[in-house]
């Protein structure tokens, strides 16, 4: 959890907006530190977290989580965290001889054209589960975290199927169960002759659905060792605010967190 990011976004583990769909995207940069922030944030807040970790192993997230002060292994044991490890199960799904039932979460690896229904059923099961076996452990509102969604494009799933999946998840998690959703999407450069199936199309579709968009990019002036990039925060008007709010910050990622500062005020420059 990054304290500076909490103050920028006006949220703390004790008080945060519910039914929020947060989109983290990047273009030629790496926004995965935001996923670690939200993972530790919601685990501290006591929410039930369903994490689809499609690009890294569980030990990676738990090692970073330890530095940020949460223990993922403990959370998983207690039932607070449901973790789908994509990498570990992927080669098993691809190399098995007989195709098992189609509602396996990773069944899209074998038949990418069929869509993501198996994955959605897995998510639905995880967020609807209440502590049936435990001694009345009730967690907070459910949270769905996905890292990252654009890898599904590389595995052959179409943009339409992914957008359907996110719509189903939003309807279930945000509207029905009053929970939150955080999705990471990684994009390519804006290409003039970009074909229809692209991560840019996916990102535009998701920006249309989300409430808060955090976009990470490199500095427009080039590579700098001490400022790792710029983050653009965009809030969708909700409730009494009628105008779009958009702010830009620079950031630097450390070992134990990230620091955010206004443009031009990095300690390397001053």
């Amino acid at each position: 959890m990054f304290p500076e990011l909490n103050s920028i976004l006006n949220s703390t583990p004790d008080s945060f907006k519910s039914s929020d769909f947060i989109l983290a995207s990047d273009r030629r940069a790496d926004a995965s530190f935001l996923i670690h922030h939200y993972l530790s944030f919601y685990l501290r807040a006591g929410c039930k977290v369903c994490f689809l970790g499609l690009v890294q192993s569980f030990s990676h997230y738990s090692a970073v989580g330890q530095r940020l002060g949460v223990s993922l292994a403990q959370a998983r044991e207690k039932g607070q965290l449901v973790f789908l490890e994509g990498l570990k199960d992927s080669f098993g799904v691809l190399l098995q001889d007989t195709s098992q039932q189609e509602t396996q979460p990773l069944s899209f690896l074998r038949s990418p054209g069929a869509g993501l229904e198996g994955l959605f059923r897995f998510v639905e099961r995880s967020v609807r589960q209440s502590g049936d076996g435990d001694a009345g452990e009730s967690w907070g509102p459910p949270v769905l975290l996905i890292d990252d969604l654009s890898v599904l494009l590389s595995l052959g799933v179409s943009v339409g199927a992914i957008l359907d999946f996110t719509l189903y998840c939003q309807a279930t998690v945000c509207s029905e169960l009053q929970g939150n959703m955080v999705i990471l999407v990684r994009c390519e450069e804006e290409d003039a002759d970009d074909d229809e199936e692209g991560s840019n199309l996916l990102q535009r579709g998701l920006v249309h659905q989300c409430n808060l968009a955090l976009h990470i990019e490199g500095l427009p002036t080039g590579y700098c060792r001490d400022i790792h990039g710029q983050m653009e925060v965009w809030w969708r008007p909700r409730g009494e605010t009628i105008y779009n709010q958009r702010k830009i910050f620079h950031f630097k990622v450390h070992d134990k967190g990230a620091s955010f500062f206004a443009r031009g005020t990095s300690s390397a420059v001053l």
Partner: protein
Amino acid sequence: MAAPMRGMAGSSNTGNTTSFQKKTHSKLVSIPGTRPSVQNGQLLVSSGVSSLDYVIGGGLAVGTLLLVEEDRFDSYSRMLLKYFLAEGVVCGHELFLASARDHPDEIMQELPSPIVDDVAGIKMSEGQSQPSDPENPDTMKIAWRYQNQPRVQTALVSSMRFGHYYDVSKTMEPELQQAAKCHRFYQLQETPVTKGSSPLPSPYQALLKSIQTVIRKEGFDGSTPQSKVRNVLRLGLHSLGSVLWGDDVCCNDNPAHCHALSTFLYALRGLLRSSLSVAIVTVPSHLIQNRAVMGRIIRLSDTAIALESFRGSEKETNPLYKDYHGLLHVHQLPRLNCLSCEVPDTKDLAFKLKRKQFTIERLHLPPDLSETVSRVSKTELAAGCGSTATGNKHLDF
């Protein structure tokens, strides 16, 4: 200082120079040819080129995938692959080599020969210290303190060093090469799998199956009981994505199996993460027209570098590049088990292949803009303007 050494020589024959024993954490696996990273404790292996190890943050982490985008004539990327395999032979790691164009045996025969430290005397020492004998002609007269030390070990059988140097003008001796256990996969000799509906096209499916079989059989994923010493498996996959692998991502703008290579890399990374192995994959990226595909492939690997050689291009005659053979671009560095990664100083790197070394140097110096640079202090101006010079001296007006 004299007394302990003399006492040591009489009592223990282990060849230690001091009696200080470093207390090693029992959990750390000690495999020859690896070392833990200073940054995040990951187990690293050397890629065979020490300057490349430095550029990618100390070495290749075990369980990760290094993607090398080939240069136009595949000369330097093939050289990197050979360095990687030669390093595996010298450290005693197991190898897995897959290629579609040249037979793996040919690549193995072309491995560069390692440069041995001690030229005179290849005989390995017994390890026992011999008592100083006045009749023995080998008795040292001046450096007699060192008489009881074991001789310099020159055999490469158990090399604990990290990173070696190779002489590219000579090929590795056949005995050394045969001593290494190498699994080979030659695409043109594999029978295509025709049955069933495999999600991946046949060559990639067969390659994935073969890699998984090797990992399981040799116990790299910890499935077999630990009766043998743990070792690292080095995988070298040459020119994936080229037409010889049955993939048309290099020839078509909209290939029929455009996700075959990316799905394969995803599954390969899954296999690597769950075993003690490290892989280097070379891809002919200059043939792939669709830039989005290359971006996806880079995202799916951990470390990604690209080689751009000057041979045959107009940069060959550019005086700026006259000392170098090509440029090295680092496209991606992994963040393993930590938030931040090793951020390089500069991204302008050039390489040069000399006979005994593959050097990578920075081309220009970056502007000196960092948090630790010293700046001319403005306090002498502030003292004249205002009485209170105790404010933040960087923001004084």
